């Protein structure tokens, strides 16, 4: 019944909340706290003062209306001409507060007092379905009052979609043709792109009820990395495996020239390996022969097919990021395999992509609409080259078990992290991992940090 209340309020309320949110934001842009009191007085008087013969409330309506009208006129023009420059850090991490500087220059010969600086972030539209799932999840720990009143959840969803909470800053006085720097305090609420649209600089009119806003377009993006936690050392057994064409990969480490001998050309050899000088000398095609290479290569399989809420998926991304960032031997390659519309395999180690680059990829990875078999296919394709696999999965159903079983069947040691919702308390059957329970971890999305530290 509780879930039903949340769902129906979310479903019925979503269109109204969306409109209300827009009006609310517009009013917040315009009104000061004192302005809100007068606006509330206006509305209350309009409701209760309908009949001018019953009470004097209509007189207060007139007064409130007059005040707001005068304030509106007084705040119609900003009379500000400013140049704004923002200095953002290159990257930031979800949930870690940071500060950045903004330089504001007055381009006019007048002194401006009591300015308020606010960031305007681009907020993508929220679909109704998105809101329903968000509210149902958020409501789980809330009482009936909260379930019935859904608007605060809409506000927090929109804040999450905007991506950050940025405290407005105040400038007490900005001299004529002078510049001032303010520091803005920001907390990124989610990973991905943070899109700054503009900077709004507000001046309060003399009645103190409304703000005159100057919007300076200043588009910029900032990449927010997923949250990374320390991970207890992970010892995965596994031998070196043959890496066909491996030399092309090994740009930095040692045996780059693994040239062994020349031999006669056989149909099917790539023309790139033809040794032209030898051909010229001998008169018949000759190719270079290289020694095959053996590396340790780990695969990190990230399940991008969440079945329910977004929280376990976010935790899984965080987990994958944490695993990427943990110290690795420089001799080891790490493949990150995930599916987003199509399967991707990105490799790190031995001079290939740095961990930070893969982290950037993880910062923007989104849930995929396809089936888990896409990921399984991609994993099995590379399986012969893999020494060990780490699977971060969002559920423990038949396709996932089958993948793990097949990998193990190929002699590949597997560590499974099953990230699930904090409310999920269903029984756990390790399935193919029954023989290796140490490497089968069930993690609560909410307790990720603690779980990762467990050896």
């Amino acid at each position, binding site marked *: 019944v509780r879930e039903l209340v949340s769902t129906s309020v979310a479903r019925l309320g979503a269109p109204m909340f969306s409109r209300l949110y827009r009006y609310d934001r517009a009013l917040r842009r315009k009104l000061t*706290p*004192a302005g809100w*009191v*007068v606006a*509330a*007085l206006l509305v*209350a*008087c309009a409701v*209760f*003062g309908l*009949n*001018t*013969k*019953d*009470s*004097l*409330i*209509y*007189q*207060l*309506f*007139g*007064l*409130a*209306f*007059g*005040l707001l*009208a*005068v*304030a509106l006129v*007084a705040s119609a023009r900003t009379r500000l001409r400013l140049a704004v420059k923002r200095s953002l850090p290159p990257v930031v991490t979800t949930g870690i507060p940071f500060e950045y500087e903004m330089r504001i220059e007055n381009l006019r010969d007048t002194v401006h007092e009591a300015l308020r600086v606010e960031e305007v972030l681009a907020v993508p539209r929220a679909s109704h379905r998105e809101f329903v799932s968000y509210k149902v999840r958020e409501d789980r*720990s*809330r*009482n009936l*009052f*909260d379930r019935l009143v859904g608007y605060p959840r809409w506000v927090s969803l929109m804040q999450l979609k905007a991506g950050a909470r940025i405290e407005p800053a105040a400038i007490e006085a900005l001299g004529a043709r002078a510049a001032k720097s303010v520091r803005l305090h920001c907390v990124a609420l989610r990973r991905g792109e943070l899109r700054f649209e503009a900077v709004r600089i507000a001046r309060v009119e*003399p*009645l*103190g*009820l409304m703000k005159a806003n100057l919007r300076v377009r200043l588009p910029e993006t900032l990449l927010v990395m997923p949250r990374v936690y320390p991970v207890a050392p992970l010892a995965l057994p596994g031998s070196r495996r043959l890496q066909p064409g491996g030399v092309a990969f090994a740009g930095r480490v040692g045996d780059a020239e693994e040239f062994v001998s020349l031999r006669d050309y056989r149909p099917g050899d790539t023309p790139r390996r033809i040794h032209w000088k030898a051909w010229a000398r001998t008169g018949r095609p000759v190719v270079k022969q290289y020694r095959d290479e053996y590396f340790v290569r780990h695969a990190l399989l990230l399940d991008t097919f969440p079945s329910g809420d977004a929280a376990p998926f976010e935790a899984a991304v965080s987990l994958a990021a944490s695993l990427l960032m943990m110290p690795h031997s420089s001799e080891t390659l790490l493949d990150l395999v995930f599916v987003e519309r199509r399967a991707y395999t990105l490799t790190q180690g031995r001079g290939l992509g740095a961990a930070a680059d893969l982290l950037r990829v993880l910062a923007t990875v989104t849930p995929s609409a396809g089936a888990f078999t896409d990921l399984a296919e991609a994993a099995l394709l590379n399986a012969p080259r893999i020494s060990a696999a780490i699977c971060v999965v969002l559920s423990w159903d038949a396709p996932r078990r089958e993948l793990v079983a097949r990998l193990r069947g190929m002699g590949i040691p597997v560590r499974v992290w099953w990230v699930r919702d904090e409310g999920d308390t269903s029984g756990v059957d390790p399935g193919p991992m029954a023989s290796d329970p140490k490497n089968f971890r069930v993690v609560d999305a909410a307790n990720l940090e603690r779980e990762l530290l467990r050896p």
Partner: protein
Amino acid sequence: MTASPGLLGAALALWGVSTGQLAVGVALGILLEATRFARGLESAVTPRRLAWLVRLVTGAVLANLVYELAAGQMPQSLYAWLRWLPPLLLPIPAAQMVAGGTLPLGPFVEAFRGRAVEARAIDTTHAFAAVTLVGAATGNVVEPVFYAAAAILVGWALAARVARKGWAITVALVVAASALGYAIHRGLAALQTNVEEMGAELLADYFSPKPDPFRERTRIGDLGRVKLSDRVFMRVVPGGSRPRELLLREASFDRYDNGEWKNTRRAFRLLQEQGERWRLRGGDGPQQMTVRRSIPGGEGLLALPVGAQVIDRLPARALEVLPIGSVRAKGTPRFVAFDIAYDERLADDAPAGREDLETPQLLASLLDQVIAREGLKGVSGEQTRRAVERYFASRFAYSLTMGDTKSGARGIAEFLLRDHKGHCEYFATATVLLLRRAGIPARYTVGYSAQEYSDRERAFLVRHRHGHAWARAFVDGRWITVDTTPARWAENEREAARSSLGPLMDWVSWLSDRVLQSWMSHSARQLALAAATGFALLVAPFAIRLLLRRLGGRSRTKAGPASPATLAWRSLEKRLAKRGLGPRPGETARAWAQRLHAESPSEPWRAKLLELAQAYYRVRFDPAATAHSEREFVDAIASAKPGSDPGFI
């Protein structure tokens, strides 16, 4: 930020004065202001206690709402609830004053949602001041000064928040806002009055009692002012020459009793219909008129000229004629238009009887006194009539004001002896009584005076306010009309009933009359045809537009806004066109640049133009072109200015 010292106390004092709870208001104000001086109690306001206080106060407010709704009647119960909000909410601003500064928002949220929120501070004192003002506005003890007091309090609250330097501007703006607010609330009050009147006029047909041929309650002895409606309810088109005024009688009465006229003759005669033609008496009168009016409920008295003979084109189930001259129609459509043939020289009333000479016993001596003092009784009936008319014309004035609560009710005695002022009912009643006392049979007649001729409509407009009363006297063997009401009455009533919406209402009335006229003068088939044509004309533009859109399809799709690169390129084209080097009609950008370059290959700017044209094509048509390259292109065009390259203008 807490409200400035004294503000809340003053607001509570205003609440006390306005609601008649002066002692309570002042005591609460002093108590609240005193909490500012409570020292060392800050730690007593813990979030937990505050959450409980919020729950307690909310509970009290809700309980009071339930009580008021159960005990009183809407909307008074709502006002009573609002009135007691300030004392009930008082503990919260008091807690803020004790805590000093602001209150944390957390406990307010926690009180209902059971979970803490981020640490934000709020100020409850100004909101409390606003609630107190609303509470004060539910009382009306100090109505004349309430607005000024409220404006001063609000101005105080606003000015206290600004620095001393900006005071003057703030105060000036508060004064401007207050003046605007004053105009608005006065306007609102006037608007409500107007709307109520308009509503009353619109609904008058449904709620006003039907005229009764046997009984007419006059407003003689009532208090207040006669309320007049400006609504047009009948149109009279005179046949032949247009008279200055037409008196249309609805009913006549013969017995007066304490402010009420009655009819002693109750017998009526049913008329025989001759195909929507009703004959009241013999003859086909020399005078004609057409009446268009509404008969609410399909039943009512017809306002007819004296001497009406034939009513034509009136669809009715029955027409009844009373001996005293009233005609009642039954079973008519709501809107009717009919012709009347009449001869005003014919007296159609029942002959004068004993009842037409009766006067109430109580008034007899008074009437005799007036007749004797003024010498109203002449030798002949005609002389008496003239004397009575002269008496009213010389001594009396028209007034719509009846008695008021101070001077009490005014009867006929006060009218005749004391103030000599009144509306037509006073004049007609007094005339009838004086004539009767002077020995002339007389009757009291009510109806309408059609005197407002509209050139646009070519008809007399008869409004509800044209309702009139006059006397009929039996002089020299026939019934004649004696109207002693001063001639200014209609003018006075027009001024009294004037409303700002009057012309609009008249226009609406005229429009509906036109529609009704054409409705009544056409057959169902013609009407259906007209409706279909109208509908088709209305729908045609939409249909054509839809059709064009279908046919035009994609070719008519509007081009999107030009990209910055295109705009920059066009500006370049314009610059060169001024030198007579612009592109020819239909010439593409590249062809144009190539032509210019070929004309004089040695000039470097022409080579640069060619480069730019190629860059423009890349930016426009290369799918891999980025926003960055577009910006570069725009910058390149912008930099191709006279300063940088003499070739470009």
